[in-house]
């Protein structure tokens, strides 16, 4: 199948790029899941983040999504006590879009974009695992006791994660 060429999108509103992608690209359902626990809420159960198929298609295509640092800049703005509305939304639209990623690179990007930094920053120094990338079939097949799910402390690739 011929790969669709991404137009030069730097300077195009990200919303318009997403419209283009929705029309031109086929969604990609990923088998990857990110299981994580919030160190600020240890009493809460493990959360499971699933990449959106249309977003994954954009990531694999390249030239559409802004660098993850743009989202961090907006998050910093929003965290300020006097925040009312974004005034640097242009960063989403004017920053050079990132190139095509592999599915694995896209998952790493997604972790840095959509999961709180306190979870993944220095996570290897934590005294128990608080973030695991796994395949869908490594998760429990039913949601029995869903609110008690925790990451298995002895997790490895061959066993269930939660």
């Amino acid at each position, binding site marked *: 199948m011929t790969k669709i060429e991404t137009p030069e999108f730097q300077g195009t*509103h*990200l*919303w318009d790029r*997403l419209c283009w992608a*929705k029309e031109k690209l086929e*969604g990609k*359902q990923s088998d990857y*899941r990110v299981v994580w626990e919030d160190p600020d809420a240890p009493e*809460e*159960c493990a*959360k*499971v*983040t*699933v*990449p*959106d*198929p*249309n*977003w994954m298609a*954009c990531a694999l295509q390249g030239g559409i*999504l802004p660098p993850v640092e743009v*989202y961090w800049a*907006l*998050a910093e703005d*929003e965290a300020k006590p006097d925040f*009312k*509305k*974004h005034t640097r*939304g242009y960063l*989403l639209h004017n920053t050079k879009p990132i190139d095509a990623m592999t599915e694995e690179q896209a998952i790493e990007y*997604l972790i840095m*974009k*959509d999961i709180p930094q306190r979870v993944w920053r220095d996570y290897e120094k934590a005294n128990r695992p608080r973030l695991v990338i796994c395949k*869908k079939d490594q*998760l429990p*097949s*039913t*949601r029995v006791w*869903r*609110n008690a*799910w925790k990451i298995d402390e002895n997790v490895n690739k061959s066993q269930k994660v939660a």
Partner: protein
Amino acid sequence: MANGTIAFDTLTTSDSKNTNTEKSIDTSYIFNGVAKFWVHFNGTGTIATQDSFNQSALTDNGTGEYTSTFSNNMANDDYSTQVTGTESGSDGVSSQIGTLQRNGDYSTSQVESNGYHANNNADADNQRMMVNVLGDLA
């Protein structure tokens, strides 16, 4: 015929079929009224997005609790959200409408939705969850 772009700020109609009185609308009104985010997902089993727009990821936070993150942030956290969903009845045949609510902190980067049984206020996973957001984009 090649596809192109038509840029216009105002739509005008003569309304000749009805009132024969010319009417105009600023196209920004149309854009401002469009849903800026929507998603339809299955909130049971290993949750999965059926279809969506402007979502980067969906997070399963526990029974009946979900977070959708935006690809294009909203401009502020004063946007409007609509949430609805259904789950199968205990007999496996009938459907019931779960009462759903927007939950958690308002943020320009994500929206949280919550499904629960209206009869006992218990959180519940829903087979069909649908969330829309209206508002201004960053």
